[in-house]
């Protein structure tokens, strides 16, 4: 629920039937929590969360105020159909009493979950700091020493509130205030976990920083809160991968990600999300980019019942650049309402949105995007390309592009295409020995290739595998 895009209110109803597709991430561990809040949301729950976390008064006040805002805001009337009972959700679960400092200290069942996700291997493979979020709290984290030496801060946001109060207070909720939208307000009231990163002036992190997220308790909301500050001339590529096991009742994921990209700095934020089919994934992501800074969002959305996510870049000073590359895959019972928001606030800023969506087996994907050019943003440029691939007649794709231009001295381009897998393409591949399913998968992987090649290697492989899993049983 990232943006306040105005949209037609007659968005079609999402099919209520969520049919599970078995996938490889559908494993679950027996729940063994040290603390689980009761269902529902009120001031008492918020106090409880704040108590559990030993938070300073300002954060407690911020949460309570956010709760009021959440209660006062109506549900958005556009986008997808959010049929959620907010009183039937757990808002906070703490998986173990303290944060694991080394792998040996991490509880065994949590380790097993991580093993299945390949986290230790990732460590061995010289990945930098691995932050893995299990339920609402970070239980294991490590950061390579050379990064610490350079002054890079990388921790969970809960710890950051305690350890770096000044820095957190300066930026927290400044890019996305709780008043922004109903789900940002919800997150602000009950947030837990997420990553906090500060990259000092001039520090360039050459390898991607990664975090894995996972929801594992039935009916548990996950409200992580990420704040990244990239100081002047600094550089970072942050990778967030999410997989979730499958459950039979609704589960809500509503994250907030705020990024500050200062003068001449560069930030790339890569997400691959593969949610279970019953999850509502309503995320607000926004970055502010200053003079000659570059912000890139790479966003892969698979699974979930409904995803509403429109990563935004506000280009605040001359020369700032924003880019969103988005891949969405909607299958049976799924609605991907994804896109981007680019706001040009200063002269000579440039933005690019490339969106690729795939709909299959009755799935629906929508591109929803806003390009806004303010009065002062002369000489700005924006390009939007959105391509949709529809695999069968039951599936659906829509495009909602919004362009608001207040300055005439700008260049704006928009291209959209919708295609179907052609019988001739399929026959060509089949005549070379590929089965129909293999041929379709190959065509789909080819369709998203221009974006996949922007991913780090292991994520590109993962993305192709996820597509194969999604494509299984799609034919015949």
């Amino acid at each position, binding site marked *: 629920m990232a943006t306040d895009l105005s949209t037609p209110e007659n968005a079609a109803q999402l099919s209520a039937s969520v049919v599970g597709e078995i996938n490889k991430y559908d494993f679950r561990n027996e729940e063994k929590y040290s603390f689980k809040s009761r269902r529902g949301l009120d001031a008492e729950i918020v106090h409880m969360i704040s108590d559990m976390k030993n938070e300073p008064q300002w954060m407690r006040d911020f949460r309570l105020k956010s709760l009021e805002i959440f209660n006062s805001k109506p549900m958005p009337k556009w986008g997808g159909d959010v049929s959620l009972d907010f009183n039937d959700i757990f808002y906070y679960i703490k998986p173990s009493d303290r944060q694991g400092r080394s792998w040996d200290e991490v509880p065994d069942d949590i380790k097993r979950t991580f093993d299945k996700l390949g986290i230790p291997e990732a460590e061995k493979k010289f990945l930098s700091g691995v932050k893995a979020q299990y339920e609402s709290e970070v239980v294991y984290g490590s950061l390579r020493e050379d990064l610490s030496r350079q002054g890079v801060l990388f921790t969970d946001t809960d710890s950051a509130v305690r350890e770096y109060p000044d820095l957190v207070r300066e930026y927290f909720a400044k890019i996305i205030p709780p008043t922004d939208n109903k789900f940002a307000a919800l997150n602000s009231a009950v947030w837990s976990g997420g990553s906090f990163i500060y990259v000092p002036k001039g520090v360039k992190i050459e390898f991607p920083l990664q975090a894995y997220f996972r929801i594992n308790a039935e009916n548990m909301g996950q409200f992580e809160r990420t704040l990244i500050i990239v100081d002047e001339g600094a550089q970072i590529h942050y990778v967030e991968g999410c997989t979730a096991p499958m459950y039979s009742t609704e589960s809500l994921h509503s994250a907030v990600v705020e990024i500050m990209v200062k003068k001449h700095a560069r930030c790339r934020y890569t997400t691959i999300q593969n949610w279970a089919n019953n999850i509502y994934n309503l995320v607000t992501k926004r970055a502010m980019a200053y003079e000659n800074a570059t912000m890139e969002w790479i966003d892969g959305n698979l699974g979930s019942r409904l995803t509403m996510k429109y990563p935004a870049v506000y280009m605040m000073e001359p020369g700032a650049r924003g880019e969103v590359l988005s891949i969405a895959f909607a299958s049976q019972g799924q609605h991907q309402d994804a896109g981007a928001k680019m706001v040009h606030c200063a002269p000579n800023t440039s933005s690019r949105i490339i969106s690729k969506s795939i709909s299959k087996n009755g799935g629906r994907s929508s591109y929803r995007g806003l390009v806004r050019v303010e009065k002062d943003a002369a000489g700005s440029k924006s390009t939007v390309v959105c391509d949709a691939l529809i695999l069968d007649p039951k599936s659906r794709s829509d495009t909602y592009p919004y362009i608001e231009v207040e300055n005439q001295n700008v260049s704006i381009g928009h291209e959209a295409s919708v295609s179907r897998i052609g019988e001739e393409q399929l026959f060509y591949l089949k005549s*070379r*020995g590929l089965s129909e399913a293999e*041929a379709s998968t190959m*065509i789909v992987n080819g*369709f998203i290739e221009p974006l996949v090649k922007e991913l780090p290697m292991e994520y590109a492989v993962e993305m192709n595998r996820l597509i*194969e899993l999604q494509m299984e049983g799609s034919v015949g």
Partner: protein
Amino acid sequence: MVGLTTKNEANSPAMAGDIKNDVLTIKNLHVSVDGKPILKGVNLTVRRGETHALMGPNGSGKSTLGYAIAGHPGYEVTDGSAELIVDGTTYNLLDLEADERARRGIFLAFQRPMSIPGVKLADFLRHATTNVRRPERKEGEELIPMREFRKELKSKMEQLRMDTEFARRYVNEGFSGGEMKRAEILQMAMLRPKFAILDETDSGLDVDAVRLASQSIAEIGGADMGIIIITHHDKLLEHNVPDFTHVMLGGRIVETGGRELAEELHGAGYDRIRAAYPDAAAEEKAMTEKKQAAAAV
């Protein structure tokens, strides 16, 4: 007219006897497209090691025969049979999907191959090669090892005088006419089919490119393949001297001869054929008129 040179040694059918038992037999094949009959009783027998030229005026059904043998779902077989015997096993082709036919040894080099954006030729070929070499492979099972595949691909590309960088390009995406045809021949080289149909592999190529294609087909096909070459010209047959030449007219093969028939048609065209087979010529005329009427609408 360019005379046909003698068949090269590799193409001699006098090789090991057993492959000659592998045979593709088409009997009385009737095929309709969008409900319109195109093939009206085609009979054709091709043994491995033989080269057949398939000639005939435009619209006589040559490409349709190629698509029908390869198993295009839009080409509906309304009567007749297509049978493949390989290593002593008999397959009713009409019962098999296109991919299964490919796995049993059928290959069609397309006149206009489809582009598959975002899919690298090498990746596509590794998948295809694995499936054709391991016909029982299930989806998701391992592909042939990368190193082994790359080595073979490199050697085949060198043999075809292709730059290996070419394999990194997306399948037929932005290829020139010549590149497309060479990519088709490369696929044939990697898949090593038992029977290959080459649908106007010479169309759109300049004289040198046709000569190169002709030579490549001969080198790759060797004595191993049964080859059906659909062509209007004689250049492609320069290195692939036909053992048999068939002439199609009005949806049937009306005359079969040896290489001399191909030579004759190159020189004199189809007037003698039309005169000799008035029924087929009438069919051809009717089909052409129908097509023109449809186009006018």
